[in-house]
Each structure stands twice: as structure tokens, then as C-alpha cells.
């Protein structure tokens, strides 16, 4: 057998989560930035930039969950039950926000502020707990007898809470640069103003997480700082700094597209760093993708469908972003 099904599935799921982080990241970011924009028609514009695509973005989350269940049931059961509360909180945030999206446009102006608050609150809660889940996941989940062996509130650590804050800042930057690309005029200028401090904030939190992780996890430190790994992995932090520098420059010259693309690169680099730290564990610190794998009969059976349908979904997604490219102004609406 030359085909490593677990490896293929790991790649599919990592890719799916990456799609989710990038795509739902900017639309959650738009929600996080709502408090910085008071004008109601500006808020309409902000929402309209993501309105046609947000639910497609969230479907990646469902696909990630279902793929994990099918290919790595052990990881699905351990990770989800270990991080029970933060995951439920995140889902609640997403529900609230998803529906706020729809109903905000369907109520009278005077009542919109209620759904605005639901949108802001839902976006913040969903993002924060996604970060908490990530932080707790990096910190590792004890497993005994193929079940989670830790406590109900083990996820509640300073590190994971900080990761929650860090993700809020990161998604805010993603949303901010998305809006630089998709809006014009005052709103765009406002985003360029917020952009500079946001880049610095992202640099600071990334730096803190990057130091905090190896300091508290000797095995991750070992992976990064031993020779020759250090040389192989050095491009990651170097590229992060280059991206950040380019980002600051491009925002200062009021660029339209470059900031968003560089932010995507930043997120991708952060994600790669995470992958370097954790690979090949699917339940850190010790359960690998092969140990958590479903029987090959299950992975193979599901792979057939995934390989048929995922390319079609990707093509469709690309097409819909192409259709909705360009600037959104106050006169436009998707409703």
C-alpha cells in the first residue's frame, strides 16, 4: 500500500480549516470592527462586502467537523469533548451572528441597533472562543484509554485566553484590510487609519504567542530551536517581519489590494508555524494522525466523495468571489 490515506485526509482537513480561518476570519473581522464605525450606512456597506459569501465561508467549518469525524474519529471525539464549553460558546456566537446578518436588513432602522449588537457580540464571542480552542489545543489534551482524561475547565488558562485575544486582533486586521480592498471614500480612509495600529498589535500578540508557546512547551521549543531545524524554519519568522513591514508601507500609501494579500500571507505564515509546532500530532502532545485514524475502509470510502466534490466547491467559490469583486458603495445592496 503506497497510499497514506491518513496523510491525505490530514492535508484535506488542514486545508479546510485554513480556508475557514481565512474566509470566516475576514467576515468575523468585519463584525469586530463594527464598533469603530458608527454611521449606519457605512455599517450597511461593511456588511454588504461580506453578505454574499459569509455562509459559504462557514460551511467550511461544517465540512472540517464532518471530515474530522469521518477520517479521525478519535481526534473528533477527544478534541470536541475536551473543549466542550469553548466550542459550544463559539457555536452560539456563530448562530447569533449568522442570523443577525440576515435579520439586520429586514428590520426597521430604529431596531437595527439590536441586531448590530448581536452581530458585534456574536463575532467577538465566536472569535474569542476560537482562539481559546486553539490555545488549549496547542497546550495539549491528556488522553487515556482513547478518551479525554482532563478536567472540564482545563482549557481556562492564561495562555488560551491570550490566544483568544490574539485571534480577535488578527481577525480584526483581516477584516480591516478586506475593507480597504472592498470599500472606497471615508470608510476606506478610516480603515487605513485603524490599519497601522492593528498591524502593530498583531505583531505584538504574534510575538508574545511565539515566545510563550516554546517557553511553556519544551517539545515545541526543541523542534524549533534545535539544529538544523532552526535553519529550515528560520524563513517563517523572517517572512513574518517582511510581511509586516510591507503591510505598514502599503497601508501608509493607501493601497487597495496589497494590505489584504499581505495579511493573508501573515495568517498563512502563522498557520504554518502552528503546523511546524504540532505536526504530526492531531491531538497534541502525543496522538498522531495515524494513531487517531479511522480504519482505511472509512477513510477510503469518504475520500472518493471528497475528491469528487471538493474541486467543484473550490471552483464555485472562486467564481462567486470573482462575481462579487470590486468596490461596494452605499448604493449597493445584496438584499
Amino acid at each position, binding site marked *: 500500500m503506497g497510499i497514506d490515506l491518513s496523510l491525505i485526509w490530514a492535508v484535506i482537513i488542514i486545508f479546510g480549516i485554513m480556508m475557514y480561518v481565512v474566509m470566516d476570519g475576514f467576515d468575523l473581522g468585519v463584525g469586530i470592527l463594527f464598533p469603530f464605525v458608527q454611521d449606519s450606512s457605512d455599517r450597511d456597506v461593511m456588511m454588504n462586502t461580506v453578505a454574499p459569501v459569509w455562509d459559504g465561508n462557514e460551511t467550511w467549518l461544517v465540512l472540517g467537523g464532518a471530515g474530522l469525524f469521518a477520517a479521525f474519529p478519535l481526534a*473528533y471525539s477527544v478534541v470536541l*469533548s475536551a473543549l466542550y464549553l469553548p466550542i459550544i460558546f463559539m457555536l452560539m456566537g456563530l448562530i447569533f451572528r*449568522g442570523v443577525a446578518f440576515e435579520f439586520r436588513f429586514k428590520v*426597521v432602522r430604529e431596531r437595527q441597533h439590536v441586531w448590530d449588537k448581536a452581530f458585534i457580540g456574536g463575532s467577538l464571542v465566536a472569535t474569542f472562543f476560537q482562539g481559546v480552542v486553539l490555545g488549549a489545543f496547542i497546550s495539549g489534551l491528556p488522553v487515556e484509554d482513547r478518551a479525554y482524561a482532563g478536567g*472540564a475547565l482545563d482549557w481556562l488558562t492564561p495562555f488560551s485566553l491570550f490566544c483568544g485575544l490574539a485571534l480577535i486582533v488578527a481577525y480584526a486586521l483581516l477584516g480591516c484590510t478586506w475593507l480597504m480592498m472592498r470599500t472606497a471614500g471615508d470608510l476606506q480612509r478610516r480603515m487605513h487609519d485603524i490599519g497601522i495600529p492593528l498591524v502593530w498589535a498583531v505583531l505584538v500578540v504574534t510575538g508574545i504567542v511565539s515566545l510563550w508557546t516554546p517557553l511553556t512547551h519544551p517539545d515545541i521549543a526543541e523542534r524549533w530551536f534545535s539544529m538544523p531545524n532552526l535553519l529550515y524554519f528560520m524563513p517563517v519568522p523572517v517572512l513574518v517581519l517582511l510581511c509586516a513591514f510591507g503591510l505598514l508601507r502599503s497601508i501608509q500609501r493607501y493601497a487597495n489590494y496589497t494590505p489584504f494579500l499581505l495579511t493573508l500571507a501573515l495568517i498563512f505564515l502563522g498557520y504554518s508555524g502552528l503546523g511546524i509546532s504540532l505536526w504530526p500530532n492531531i491531538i497534541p502532545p502525543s496522538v498522531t494522525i495515524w494513531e487517531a485514524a479511522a480504519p482505511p*475502509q472509512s477513510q477510503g470510502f469518504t475520500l472518493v466523495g471528497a475528491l469528487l466534490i471538493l474541486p467543484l466547491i473550490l471552483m464555485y467559490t472562486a467564481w462567486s468571489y470573482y462575481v462579487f469583486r470590486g468596490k461596494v458603495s452605499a448604493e449597493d*445592496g445584496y438584499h
Partner: protein
Amino acid sequence: MFGLEALELARIQFAFTITFHIIFPAITIGLASFLAVLEALWLKTRQEVYRDLYHFWLKIFAVNFGMGVVSGIVMAYQFGTNWSAYSEFAGSVTGPLLAYEVLTAFFLEAGFLGVMLFGWNRVGERLHFFSTLMVAVGTLISTFWILASNSWMHTPQGHEIIDGIVVPVDWFAIIFNPSFPYRLAHMAVAAFLATAFFVGASAAWHLLRGKDTPAIRKMLSMAMWMALLVAPVQAVIGDFHGLNTLEYQPAKIAAMEGHWDNSEGGPTPLLLFGWPDMEAEETRYKIEIPYLASIILKHSLTEPIPALKDFPPEDRPNSTIVFWTFRIMVALGLLMIVTGIWSLLLRRGDRLYSSRPFLRLVLLMGPSGLIAILAGWYTTEIGRQPWVIYGLMRTADAVSNHGAGQLGLTLAMFVVVYFAVFGVGMVYVLRLVKKGPVVSEGREKGAGGPGEARTPMRPISAADEAISHEQGDQLGERN
């Protein structure tokens, strides 16, 4: 919390979230096929009433679909969060089946739903009809996968247990397990009936208020043909499903019938009324028809049906609940058949659209299909207890190791959020219904598409009715 154990709380949480969720897919399945029929009739006859109805129900379909997607996100994660031991044990079977459902639904949403919702004026009519058809087929394919997964939990086969884990051996046997064909047929037809009665009640509501248009008449007429023809078919499917359950899950049948004891032998009566008492091991306040249960289930005048005392107490499902949920489902089914027959009689006298007692009944029957679906699911799922996978894994062994405190907290949150969020959604659906079909909708050139300023894309945005009725015009302008 309220003296409930973590296991009970986890079960209540699953029941609560799936109860809310199932309502939306059920109506989605029914409406998708209804829309396909409407569009086919429009293309064939070119009667405008079909086109108007298509556009009217398309909006309601869109909102429903959106709600189904949102409530479905929770379902995709709940197996892992609340039932991690189950997921670990049987994820190799349930996971792939659910993944196929998600892939199918994703594909359907990505491709054809957009064309169906927003493409009326932008693609050719054949392509549009094809899209509607694919969406309708897609909802049935989703039903297929979900029910394959669920039925396998009732009648598992096609697997081996290796090192304490389920390993699939024969996917064909897993999917086409013994209870699957009956359950799939029963559920798909139930979705059609639930939708028919929802559509019928919408028409009755307008007719009772004196809004008598050809479109509304057509709605009522189509719904009542469904009731007349399909409700009896459903009774037959249900009967076959019952015989299948008798073969594979006799304890469930005993609990549904509230039948305790076969020590005296002889035929089993059918209980019309009673209160099964799990502690006293008997059914109180019985009103019975002799022989009937044996006749229905065994086609025999002498042979008894299984009795609860044939099974040890720890293997008995809760008869008090399933006895009643089953009777509620059957009673509603019989009422549907009666409604259908009454509609036929009224057609002969041309009083279908004017008989107020009949229209009031149809209005009251509006939620009957959905209530029957819920009652039926409670019967089959609670009747499977104490097993989560019949004969393989007990529910008590399937649950995650959470404390009652955190389960109570999340359950309370689900209750608040679901009622707030889906409550608004349902109010919105009812408001759309109240507005009624509009003449000549869809004939105007729709804005949008590449190069257009306004391009609706998401399911709910297909419905552009404002939530606050009074302000509708003002909003219409803005949008």
C-alpha cells in the same frame, strides 16, 4: 440541575437541538419537491398561477433552508462534544455517512441553489428547472445519508468489532441495513405530507379571511390532493415499518403498545388509551379492542405480540412516553386521511374553497405533519433505548464525561438562543405566508449578476419582505 443526571441532560440537549433542527429540513425537503412540481406545471401549461406560486413558496423555502443550515452547524459538532464515546466507537461508520451528507448538501448549495433562488431571469428556463430539480433531488440525497446513518444505529450490520472499535466491512450492507428502506420512505413521505398540510393551512388562512384568488385556490387544491392520495400511502408504509421493527426491535413494539405480559398467552388487544407504569410493570386505565394488536402486527387471531416482561427491566424502553408519542402520530395520520377524504367530498359539491368548518380544520392541521414527525422520531429513538446502537452500545456508555453543571449551563443557553433566533425565523416565515402569493411575480427583470449593482446570493436574502410589516415599503426602497 433539577436532580437530573448528566446522561439525562445530554439526552435532553440532543433531543432539543435536533427537534428544532428537523423542522427546517422536513419543510425544505417537501417544499423543494413542491417547487419542482410547480415549475414543471408552469413550463407545461404556462398558467401564470403556477409561476406566481413558485415565487411565493421559493421565498419561504429560502428562509427555511437558511435556518436549517444554521441549526445544522450545531448538529455536526454535537456527536463529538456530547457523545464522544459513541463517536470514538462508531465514528468509522457514522462519520463517513455524515461526511457524505455534508458534501452532498455543500455541493447542492454551492451549485444549484444559487441558480434556483436568483437565476429566474438570468438563465434559460430549462436550466432553471433543472436546477430546481437538482435541489429537490439533493434534499432527498441528504435524507438518504442521514437516515442510512440513523437506521444503522437501529439495525446495525456490515461491520466487525476489532479492538473495541466498529470497523466497516461492507458499506452496501451498512447503508442498506434492514430498517433503512422503511425509515427512508416513511420520513420522505412524512416531509411531503408535513409540507402539504403547511401549504394547505396557508391557503385556508387566506380563504377564511376572504382572500380568494386562483393561486390560493390552487394551493389548497394541490395540498388536499396530496392529503387524499399520500396520507393513506403513508399509513401503509408505517405499517410495513412497524412489522420491520417487530422483527428487529421487539422491545420497542411492546413499549409502543404498552403490553406487559404474555404469561397467559393468547391474542393481544390494541390499547386505545392507557398509562403504562414502568414501576408497577402494568398499563393503567386501559381501554382496549380485543385481538386488534395481534391482527395488525402478527396477522393472526391467536399469536401474541412481544411483551415488556419478556425483557429484563434494564433493557426496556420507556413505555409511558413511546405509547403516547406513537398514538399522537397515528391519530394525526388518521386525521390527515379524514381531511383528505372530506376534501374529495367537498370537491363534488364545489364547496372545497368555501366550507368554513373544513377550512378551519385545514388551518388547525397546519402543524400536524411536523408534530407527527416529531412524535414519530421520539417513538423510534426513545423506543431504541437503552441502546444507542441497538444491541452494540448502550446510551449510558456513549455519553461524554461531562458534569451535570456544564451540561445544564449549555442546555439553558441552547434553549435561550434557539427560541430567540429560530423564533424570529419562524415569525418571519409566518409573515411571508400572511402576505400571500403576488400576481405576476418574477416577470419583471431581476437586477443582479455580474456587472449589476444588486445581486442577492444567500438563501434568506431571496426573501426580501421586511420583518416589520408596516415599514415594508420604506425598506423595499432602501434594498
